């Protein structure tokens, strides 16, 4: 029993650190939707700073810790958010994962480089290597107390517990009892709705990143005595604490916090009682990753599964339909030149380096399959490489010929890939990435510890083959052989992409349900992709090992796989030839940098990490960016005139696709044109064209709403009603035309600024935050308690249930909740997208009554409805929208039944 108590107590120490890190992960995830692999690196950087301030510069521990946690760490979070995370929120998941992996290596290197530079400048900093038993905030060495027989604690543990408890309370107060906390929770619930409510998601993102970084900084300072100054250990620690974030489903701070504590205890208990597994080498080491993998399998919601990349829209293929020569000419010429160069200009050293780059390129092409074609992020490619090479080496030591060993090794990797894929495929996105990472660590720590497989630290010799007259132990011959292999694989992958199975893979990637409906087996397709990719990685791995002439179990670890992914994605993952570029750059760039740029070992790592920044602009990598940008510029130069509005739109024109076909003139029959003097118009749309990447939806829409007036916009499905709402509210930028608020040009304003100017959108469905209580929903719009009390007086039904989550209300009550605070403080303009959708007629009438009341309070209302029946009773003006144009607009009493019919049948123009 005493044992159990000790295991629990001391498990709570690492548990507290897990909890701090996991909380930060959840906060930053909810702020910008990305899993921050660099969170542990942030903690390390803070630990390093704390150590230098305290031990190097001689500051007292507490001020140093306070500076790190309250100034430095939040500052770092703020800076990274401004520079990077905010922009990454809009790109695909792969680019997000990779950008933070880049930071994972860059941040520690930056810290060490800074220490190096400071030391050179004569500052009294201490070197960061070989430091053990470092002091934390408490006394060093730690004071220890014996609580009872066999149960003791020390001051470092006590400080960790107390501080973590204080943080838990502070977080609770912050999230539950402050306005910023309320807004943060609202943003987690429905990010776009917070923007429509005038709360800047960017500002929230900054706040969340600052808090997350501060928590990482705190964990770093507290963990200094335990982990020392090992960036590697901090990162491992982070991966484990990811389990706690999974427990909190990346959304719930309290769950993640509790999960972290529980995880520490569980880990300690398993390690303490794992004597049953003593015969399995590495089992105890692997416990955290077993927990991580198990946690992911059990806890991940089946929202998005592997290989669905709705956000990963492919870049425009500017060479679509081009001739073979244009598509491949450059690459073929490059390959030819490389082959010639091997035997003419390159020195032995560079021949070796280029051959190595080509061998790595073979491995890198496996990412083209799994991530490029399959949209799955696999962090286990290093495992497949090691597995295949070890098997091949084992067989060659038994006298097998190279080719046979290569074949068996490749198959072994493929089988390993299938084994990894089977449990992991039901996960998606970051969960799949984490699961493959956990499996990669498990393989490192258990599978590759098997003595018969790894052959100790000696590993296996993988001699280079002699194929007939060609002896590949000459680097030049190996180089040429690799060029041929790389070309074959690239051609094979391109053929696969164009084949029926390749199309099935792409179908599964973008629309699994539709693919399944067309008779494509989603699971089998994904399994095939994963297996193929693992096999390819294994194939490349055996050749890489034969370049090295040896394989040991520690040559390619899980962390290597992480860095590889970053290198490939930075170059571009959609085409095999980009992987070749990545391989060559990976081999050659460090040498060029150290020869011509810098002697420092840190600077290249920092530069590599910052490549992640570039992904925020070109999420498809630098290889893809070059031709795409060139093609775009060529298209621009060849005389396509920009659409009329784009010049005045500034930043917004960037995201919308200009329509080369030009914009039709505003509808000459628009009624308002003769009517409008603009002076009393609360909201005006003038000649607005707008749409999505697929094409334009609105083709020159003019609408005017005045104070105290209800404009009803009617139209059939697909007429562009919701698009018009979104344009009016600022959540969709226009491609052309103008939006004016009270006569002022507001075209360039986003949703936040429009909302602050008094233009609110009640989006289709219900404009509420389902996970917040009624009280909290109201408080977002009405911070003053008196105003909320007035709402409760008016709506006793809401008052009765003020502590209930809004998601538990009926549809009518939810609509009531969305409108109630507006009555209390009427906005300038309310845009309501189908306010009666899904409501019983009686309830819809109630809603219309509320809207009328708003009009009487002076609000200008723009109501969009599909069904005309109810709304015609309240509207002052009616506009018909048909095929993206205003077909008719006029006062309600001029509405004629056949006009209405025409509008719906689309014959009104």
């Amino acid at each position, binding site marked *: 029993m005493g044992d159990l108590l000790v295991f629990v107590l001391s498990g709570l120490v690492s548990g507290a650190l897990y909890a701090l890190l996991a909380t930060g992960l959840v906060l930053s995830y909810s702020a910008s939707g990305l899993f921050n692999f660099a969170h542990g690196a942030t903690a390390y950087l803070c630990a390093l700073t704390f150590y230098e301030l305290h031990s190097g510069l001689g500051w007292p521990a507490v001020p140093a810790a306070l500076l790190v946690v309250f100034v430095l760490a939040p500052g770092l979070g703020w800076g990274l958010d401004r520079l990077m995370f905010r922009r990454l929120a809009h790109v695909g998941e792969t680019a997000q994962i990779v950008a933070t992996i880049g930071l994972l290596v860059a941040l520690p290197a930056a810290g060490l480089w800074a220490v190096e530079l400071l030391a050179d400048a004569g500052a009294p900093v201490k070197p960061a290597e*070989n*430091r*053990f038993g470092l002091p934390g905030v408490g006394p060093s060495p730690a004071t220890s107390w014996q609580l009872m027989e066999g149960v003791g604690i020390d001051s470092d543990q006590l400080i960790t517990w107390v501080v973590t408890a204080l943080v838990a309370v502070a977080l609770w107060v912050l999230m539950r009892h402050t306005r910023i906390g309320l807004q943060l929770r609202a943003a987690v619930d429905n990010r776009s709705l917070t923007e429509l409510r005038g709360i800047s998601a960017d500002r929230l993102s900054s706040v969340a990143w600052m808090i997350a970084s501060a928590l990482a900084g705190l964990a770093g300072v507290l963990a200094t*005595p335990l982990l020392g100054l090992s960036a590697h250990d901090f990162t491992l620690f982070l991966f484990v604490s990811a389990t706690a974030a999974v427990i909190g489903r990346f959304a719930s701070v309290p769950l993640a916090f509790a999960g972290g504590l529980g995880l520490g205890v569980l880990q300690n208990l398993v390690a303490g009682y794992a004597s049953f597994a003593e015969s399995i080498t590495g089992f105890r080491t692997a416990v955290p990753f077993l927990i991580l993998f198990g946690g992911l399998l059990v806890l991940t919601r089946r929202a998005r599964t592997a290989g669905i990349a709705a956000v990963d829209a492919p870049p425009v293929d500017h060479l679509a339909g081009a001739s073979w020569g244009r598509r491949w000419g450059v690459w073929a010429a490059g390959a030819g030149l490389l082959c010639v160069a091997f035997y003419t*200009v390159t020195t032995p*050293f560079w021949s070796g380096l280029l051959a190595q780059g080509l061998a790595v390129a073979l491995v890198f092409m496996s990412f083209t399959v799994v991530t490029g074609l399959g949209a799955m992020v696999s962090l286990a490619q290093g495992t497949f490489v090691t597995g295949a090479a070890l098997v091949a080496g084992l067989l060659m030591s038994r006298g097998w010929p190279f080719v046979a060993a290569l074949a068996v090794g490749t198959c072994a990797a493929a089988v390993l890939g299938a084994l990894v894929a089977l449990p992991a495929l039901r996960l998606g996105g970051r969960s799949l990435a984490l699961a493959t990472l956990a499996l990669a660590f498990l393989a490192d720590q258990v599978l590759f510890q098997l003595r018969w497989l790894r052959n100790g630290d000696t590993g296996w010799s993988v001699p280079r083959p002699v194929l007939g007259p060609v002896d590949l132990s000459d680097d030049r011959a190996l180089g040429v052989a690799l060029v041929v292999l790389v070309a074959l694989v690239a051609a094979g992958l391109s053929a696969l992409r164009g084949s029926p199975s390749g199309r099935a893979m792409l179908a599964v990637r973008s629309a699994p349900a539709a693919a399944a409906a067309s008779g494509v087996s989603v699971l089998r397709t994904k399994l095939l992709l994963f297996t193929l990719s693992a096999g390819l990685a294994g194939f490349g791995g055996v050749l890489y090992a034969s370049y090295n002439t040896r394989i040991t179990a520690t040559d390619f670890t899980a962390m290597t796989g992480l860095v590889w992914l970053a290198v490939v994605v930075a170059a571009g993952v959609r085409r095999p030839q980009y992987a070749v570029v990545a391989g060559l750059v990976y081999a050659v760039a460090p040498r060029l940098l150290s020869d011509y740029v810098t002697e420092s070992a840190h600077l290249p790592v920092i530069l590599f990490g910052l490549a992640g920044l570039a992904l925020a602009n070109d999420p498809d990598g630098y290889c893809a960016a070059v031709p795409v940008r060139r093609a775009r510029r060529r298209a621009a130069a060849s005389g396509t005139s920009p659409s009329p509005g784009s010049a005045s739109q500034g930043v917004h024109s960037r995201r919308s696709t200009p329509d080369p076909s030009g914009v039709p003139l505003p509808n000459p029959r628009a009624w308002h044109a003769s009517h409008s003097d603009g002076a009393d118009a609360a909201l005006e749309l003038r000649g607005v064209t707008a749409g999505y990447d697929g094409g334009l939806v609105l083709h020159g829409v003019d609408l005017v709403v005045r104070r105290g007036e209800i404009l009803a916009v009617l139209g059939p499905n697909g007429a562009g009603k919701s698009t018009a709402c979104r344009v009016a509210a600022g959540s969709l930028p226009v491609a052309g035309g103008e939006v004016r608020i009270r006569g002022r040009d507001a075209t360039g304003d986003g949703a936040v600024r429009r909302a602050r100017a008094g233009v609110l959108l009640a989006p289709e469905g219900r404009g509420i935050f389902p996970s917040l209580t009624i009280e909290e929903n109201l408080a977002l719009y009405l911070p003053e308690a008196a105003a909320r009390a007035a709402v409760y007086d008016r709506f006793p039904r809401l008052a009765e249930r003020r502590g209930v989550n809004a998601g538990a209300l009926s549809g009518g009550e939810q609509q009531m909740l969305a409108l109630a605070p507006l009555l209390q403080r009427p906005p300038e303009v309310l845009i309501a997208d189908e306010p009666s959708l899904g409501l019983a007629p009686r309830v819809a009438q109630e809603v219309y009554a509320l809207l009328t009341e708003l009009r009487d309070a002076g609000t200008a209302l723009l109501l969009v409805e599909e069904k005309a029946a109810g709304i015609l009773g309240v509207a002052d003006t009616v506009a018909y929208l048909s095929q993206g144009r205003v077909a008719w607009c006029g006062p309600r009493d001029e509405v004629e039944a056949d006009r209405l019919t025409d509008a719906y049948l689309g014959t009104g123009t």
Partner: protein
Amino acid sequence: MLRPIRTLAAAAAAVALVSACNSASTNGTSPGGTGSAPATTRGVTADSVKVGGIVSMTTAGGYSKKDTDLGAKARYLRANAEGGVHGRTIEYLGAEDDGQDPAKNMAAARKLVQQDKVFAVSPMSSVTFSGADFLEQEKVPTFGWGTLPAFCGPRHIYGFNGCLVPTPGGTLNQTWPEGIGRILGGAHGKSVAVIANDSDAGKFGIRTFQQGFTSAGFTVSYAKASVPGTAVPSDWSAYVKEILSSNDGKAPDAVVSVMQTPNNIGLFTALKRSGYKGLLSDPTDYDPGLLAQDATRQALDGVHVLLQFQPFESDTPNMARFKADIKAAAGGKDVPLNMHMLTGYMSADLFLSIVQKAGKDLTVESFQAAAQGFSDTGTLVGDRALPKGQKDSFGCGALVQLKNGAYEVSVPFKCYEPIPFK
């Protein structure tokens, strides 16, 4: 940029790259091939010998061996100050940083040989040695810390104090068991607990030391590779409890850890807190730098540390010269000594001693011939003998004890008779 300018820039970059590739192509030895000419004189001129090094300096794990470079420099400086070897000065290029990365280790070996054209690599000290096969194939004499299997077997690769990885059929170095036996006043009837990390390497360590301690007369009451290998446990109670009752319910006379410093700090602190009064020992914590932190000083107080070279505390002339050389190489500053300096210094020393023996006509072949049958005595690593040192450790060592913030020699440096390893 305008298109023609961009094209020009790209072409210029390509030319620059090709010429960069080509810049080092001076007198071509057979590229990538083995060069079967009888006399290999790469890096040797009438008055100089070119030598490089490979050392892990920057790592993500926070462990660095960068002082190895300083140690080597110190030894070469002295050799050059004494007029070189047979009239040839040593041109030491400094050490390449491999960052504990196998790929970089290989790249560093290739650069030193193919681009810098060194005669030898000394020192080579890292946790990975993927360049070993290449160096062996290119016939590059290489000297370093023999903790990796590549130092045992290949003809051109030498450990500065021998090969430290026992191979079945080879021998086991008995310094540790014999030394601990001496401190305890005899091994018979004494029990020892051996603990290691939960990995294949840990298991192998357990196997060798279990045999070593048993044949020295100890009862091995606990021998487990049970401590997680990646993250340091925050809680040691499970291990402590098991160890302290392993000797038929009682505590063993000695606890021996074959783990790295952070683990040792945790384990020893926990053992002491639970009242353990027996002997503690490990082979890694002889680093005067550790004394700078109060926490490590307290955690390691009383611990006997195994070393396989003369302790810095001994007052032999060799050691005095070592200290003077290091000070000179560090620019006259008193730097705290550590074992990495000694690794570098003695790697260089073994290399120089063989060059000396090879005589005026220095080629790889004459060097290798001189190495066969090379032996000397009384160095900082004891009695050296080749080719025995390419299969076994030189078998010498000492124990030092950390007491009140300073290391004291508890068992003086001595060479022991090795035992066969089964």
